[in-house]
């Protein structure tokens, strides 16, 4: 609400001029010059009120005009206006992720939802559900403690959720937590992987930016409408990209002599930082030093890559590092009505919820053929691919005209190395915080863009006081950007240089293009050195 104290001098002067003009047009004999009693007692007071009313009218007019809304507009006014278009502001979401807990005793532990884990910054998390992790001696339990070779503690990994919404609760892998509510045998805890979720309440600027998507019709016939449909279903989706008719990445409409329409592939970036799932797999020895296991379609729907494979020993401990492995992706299309051509290859089913893999592992153990070994498999994946596919396949929801397949995006796994220079007069910077800043920037990029050195420099210099960053190609201190992409069919494409440009490596025959690919960086892949000079 505009008050008299909100009126600027310019607004007052303009109001005065208007009133003088109006009064003199009606009463030309009035002397309204500065210093006259009429000016002081009639014009000035009314000019103040007139200016305030003019501002209020402008404010009211702005609330009825989407064009005039901005991030500084009254949020309630923005919400009221946009509610006319059935658009609502997204509330913040709570961050969630796995926490690895070190425990002293090999016994059954129950983690109730009232248990609190807290970071040094005071951010609190609690188990999503009450969960019991059994001792390693329990042979039938699904969830057991893990003994770590050579260490006098046991590990339990449970899922926790932040106490409140907001991006600050999005922990990065390795963030330490304590347990203020007390836990028998508790030694320490840390974020097992980067957390997901954790969104701030949408700002007015963000709300207005997604307005074209949100006011579009909810159907499957345009990229905007498809995105709107998906975001309605899953508000935490970060980006959506569509390959439809005439898009070269759309391979499924080229099965015939002429390209047909109605095939739609929807690539969904359903994560901010690519999450990781731990699988326990029993691998069968097929030859000396060679084992195989399968990743079924329901194990990790929409998985992107296998990060590592390690052996789980008899005492239920795991070894550090990864075994060498090969992966062959196929698909299980039992009961699937979507149009896939798998006669030549399984490219068209890659990254869909029907993909499956046969993984061959080398050096896990020396055994007889047919023997088995327990393996721990770390798999990065795009969440919700299966649920979104189920949604579009629902008979009451799905399109009667379009064959819609939901896919995880191709991911350019990015590594960055750089040297930054800081004044020795300033307090030392935290390279960990700087790595987080760079990681957040990389993981905020959606589909269809490039990542170049200038973006990294901008991300850092906007947050930290640096003298310079070496962006040269100098082998010792220059900035290095590298990335690799597993395209459909298993082809691995490498990028490096001053920019990681997906356009340059586009190969639509393996669904690799800016339309299908997003960037992702893990904190451990960002190496920053700060030189104080």
């Amino acid at each position, binding site marked *: 609400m505009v008050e008299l104290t909100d009126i600027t001098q310019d607004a*007052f002067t303009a109001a005065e001029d208007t009133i*003088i003009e109006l009064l003199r047009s009606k009463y030309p*004999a009035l*002397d309204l*010059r*500065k*210093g*006259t009693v009429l000016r002081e007692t009639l014009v*000035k007071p009314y000019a*103040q009120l007139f200016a305030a009313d003019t501002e209020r009218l402008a404010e009211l007019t702005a609330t009825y005009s989407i064009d005039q809304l901005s991030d500084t507009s009254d949020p309630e006014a923005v919400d009221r206006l946009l509610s006319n278009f059935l658009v609502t502001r997204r509330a913040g979401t709570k961050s969630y992720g796995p926490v690895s807990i070190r425990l002293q005793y090999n016994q059954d532990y129950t983690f109730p939802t009232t248990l609190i884990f807290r970071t040094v910054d005071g951010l609190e998390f609690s188990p999503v559900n009450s969960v019991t992790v059994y001792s390693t001696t329990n042979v039938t339990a699904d969830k057991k403690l893990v003994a770590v070779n050579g260490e006098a503690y046991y590990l339990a990994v449970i899922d926790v959720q932040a106490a409140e919404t907001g991006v600050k609760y999005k922990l990065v892998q390795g963030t330490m937590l304590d347990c203020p509510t007390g836990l028998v045998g508790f030694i320490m805890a840390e974020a097992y992987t980067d957390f997901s979720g954790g969104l701030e309440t949408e700002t007015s600027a963000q709300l207005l930016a997604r307005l074209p998507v949100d006011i579009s019709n909810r159907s499957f016939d345009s990229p905007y409408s498809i995105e709107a449909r998906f975001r309605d279903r899953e508000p935490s989706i970060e980006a959506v990209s569509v390959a439809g008719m005439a898009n070269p990445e759309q391979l499924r409409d080229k099965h015939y002599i002429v390209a047909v329409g109605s095939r739609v592939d929807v690539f969904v970036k359903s994560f901010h930082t690519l999450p990781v799932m731990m699988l326990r797999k029993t691998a069968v020895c097929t030859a000396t030093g060679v084992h195989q296991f399968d990743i079924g379609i329901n194990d990790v729907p929409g998985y992107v890559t296998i990060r590592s494979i390690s052996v789980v020993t008899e005492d239920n401990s795991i070894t550090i590092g990864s075994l060498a492995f090969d992966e062959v992706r196929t698909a299980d299309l039992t009961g699937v009505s979507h149009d896939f051509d798998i006669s030549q290859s399984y490219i068209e089913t890659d990254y869909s919820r029907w993909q499956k893999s046969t993984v061959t592992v080398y050096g896990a153990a020396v055994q007889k053929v047919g023997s088995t070994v327990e393996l721990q498999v770390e798999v990065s994946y795009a969440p919700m691919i299966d649920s979104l596919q189920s949604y579009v396949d629902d008979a009451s929801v799905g399109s009667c005209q379009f064959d819609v397949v939901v896919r995880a995006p191709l991911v350019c796994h990015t590594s960055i190395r750089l040297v930054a220079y800081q004044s020795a007069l300033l307090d030392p910077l935290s390279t960990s915080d700087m790595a987080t800043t760079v990681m957040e920037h990389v993981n905020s990029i959606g589909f269809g863009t490039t990542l170049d050195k200038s973006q990294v420099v901008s991300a850092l210099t906007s947050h930290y006081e640096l003298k310079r960053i070496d962006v040269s190609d100098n082998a010792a201190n220059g900035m290095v950007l590298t990335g690799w992409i597993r395209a459909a069919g298993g082809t691995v494409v490498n990028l490096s240089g001053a920019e990681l440009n997906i356009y340059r490596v586009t190969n639509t025959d393996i669904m690799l293009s800016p339309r299908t690919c997003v960037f992702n960086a893990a904190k451990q892949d960002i190496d920053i050195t700060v030189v104080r000079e």
Partner: protein
Amino acid sequence: MNVATNYSGRLVDVEGLQTVAAPTGMVQVYFTATTGQRIVSGIQKLIQRYAIIYLSNKDSYYDPVLGTDFMMKVVNGLIQTRENVAVAFAFANDDVLRILRVDDVDPKYGTLPDDEKVDKVTLEDYNVDLATGTLFLRLKIATKAGDSAEFLLPATAPRS
């Protein structure tokens, strides 16, 4: 002072200063709310404008250039000697004349006759009433038409 009684064709203002009969020497002017409000024009209107602007402080709400620093100096005790009075008056008078002359020729306010346009204002003398803490300025105002009038302008400092 002479008070113009013929308002035909003139721009008029509302009376804010005490109205007096035609001249019998110098008269102190002061602002008052009179019963039966009257309109004024001519040199009385000019004196009224001069007095209002002279006694208004600069940087007042919504018009930072309207007014002078004179009252601020009086209230803050910065006028201690005759020289202080003369200097303070000189600056303040310059401010007022500039403001008056700008509006005098601004067509949006209509046309002013020469007997309502200021030519110059001089400080004839001053005296101080210690009992009331009031500095009285005796000013002589001359118009472009050649008319002139003397009036006393009171500037009162608050007493603790």
